[in-house]
């Protein structure tokens, strides 16, 4: 064995390996990209906190050797909001799945984007509720066969980049698990951004989504991503909706600046309190 180690190894709780993710699942790939982004952005790991909700992706919090918390279902963003407000120096990352963030925690997602709370949200979208047995999720494309829609889903799916852009996010990007280098760069970029950053990662779920829809295994899905995804930076998010087997528009869609929640809170207090407002290094509860 050589002196070289896997660059992701220092970020893992190796005693918990092998993880429970299925063969061909893309969540592990996103963790690789996240680890590379942490290395690239030279972020102080002491100032980093990772919050996950429930679900397959929610297990990331248990597998990474960082200050991490595995919250209740859908409540990753509220927990992270509390962390950020109580200790503004922290870099808070929310790492969760599409069901946890956009369905059970859907309201938290849009309101965190509206308030522009300084969170980095990584949403691994496998188009289905994977951990609970493959039920239709808000992100499941129309006509998809799932355990709760055996004759095909009739519902239109959420277009997450469009949703969070409309709600007010300052950074919105989408990649697939095929775009590993781009994803790592995007995560590193989000760390340099103040405000609500949202990165959607399309990932295979070979066990439930691809199998039921006869789309092959994880590798076939990765080949599909390679073939059918099109990089369009700055594409209007209203036009990036997903279909079952159609084109996937990926890229950095939104990169804008607007004051984050804590800046706005300070400005409001200074305006209404006048001289009575005492600027502190941190806004803390006392």
């Amino acid at each position: 064995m050589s002196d070289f180690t896997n660059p992701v190894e220092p970020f893992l709780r190796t005693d918990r390996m092998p993880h429970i993710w299925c063969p061909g699942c893309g969540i592990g790939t996103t963790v690789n990209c996240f680890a590379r982004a942490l290395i690239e952005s030279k972020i102080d790991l002491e100032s980093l906190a990772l919050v996950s909700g429930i679900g397959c992706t929610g297990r990331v919090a248990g597998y990474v050797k960082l200050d991490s918390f595995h919250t209740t279902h859908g409540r990753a963003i509220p927990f992270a909001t509390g962390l950020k407000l109580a200790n503004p120096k922290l870099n808070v990352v929310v790492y969760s799945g599409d069901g946890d963030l956009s369905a059970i925690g859907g309201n938290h997602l849009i309101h965190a984007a509206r308030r522009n709370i300084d969170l980095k949200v990584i949403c691994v979208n496998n188009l289905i509720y994977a951990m609970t047995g493959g039920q239709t999720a808000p992100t499941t494309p129309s006509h998809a066969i799932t355990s709760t829609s055996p004759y095909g889903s009739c519902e239109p799916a959420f277009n997450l980049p469009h949703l969070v852009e409309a709600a007010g996010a300052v950074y919105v990007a989408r990649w697939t698990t095929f775009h590993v280098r781009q994803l790592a760069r995007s995560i590193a970029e989000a760390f340099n951004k103040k405000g609500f950053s949202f990165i959607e990662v399309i990932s295979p779920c070979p066990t439930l989504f691809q199998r039921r829809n006869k789309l092959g295994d994880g590798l076939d899905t990765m080949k599909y991503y390679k073939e059918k995804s099109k990089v369009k930076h700055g594409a209007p998010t209203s036009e990036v909706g997903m279909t079952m087997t159609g084109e996937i528009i990926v890229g950095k869609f939104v990169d804008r600046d607007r004051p984050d929640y804590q800046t706005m809170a300070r400005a409001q207090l200074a305006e209404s309190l006048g001289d009575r407002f005492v600027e502190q290094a941190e806004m803390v509860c006392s």
Partner: protein
Amino acid sequence: MVERCKACGFCVEFCPTKVLALSSAFNSKGYHPPHVVNPEKCSGCDLCGMYCPDFAIYGYKLPNAAPQKGVPDEG
């Protein structure tokens, strides 16, 4: 490392220089981990490491940078 492999085939498929192939050997869980078939072609780009969802493989460049390889084939 070899025990973590679940034989998804991502590293084999997306290696830019086609260094790897799934072997016929089994690990203890019954999967076929990859092995190096073209070691001289490896550029050490670590794309296999980026793709591997099971953290079971990685690539690196040897410091005395002869146009050499160094994929420590799954450990």
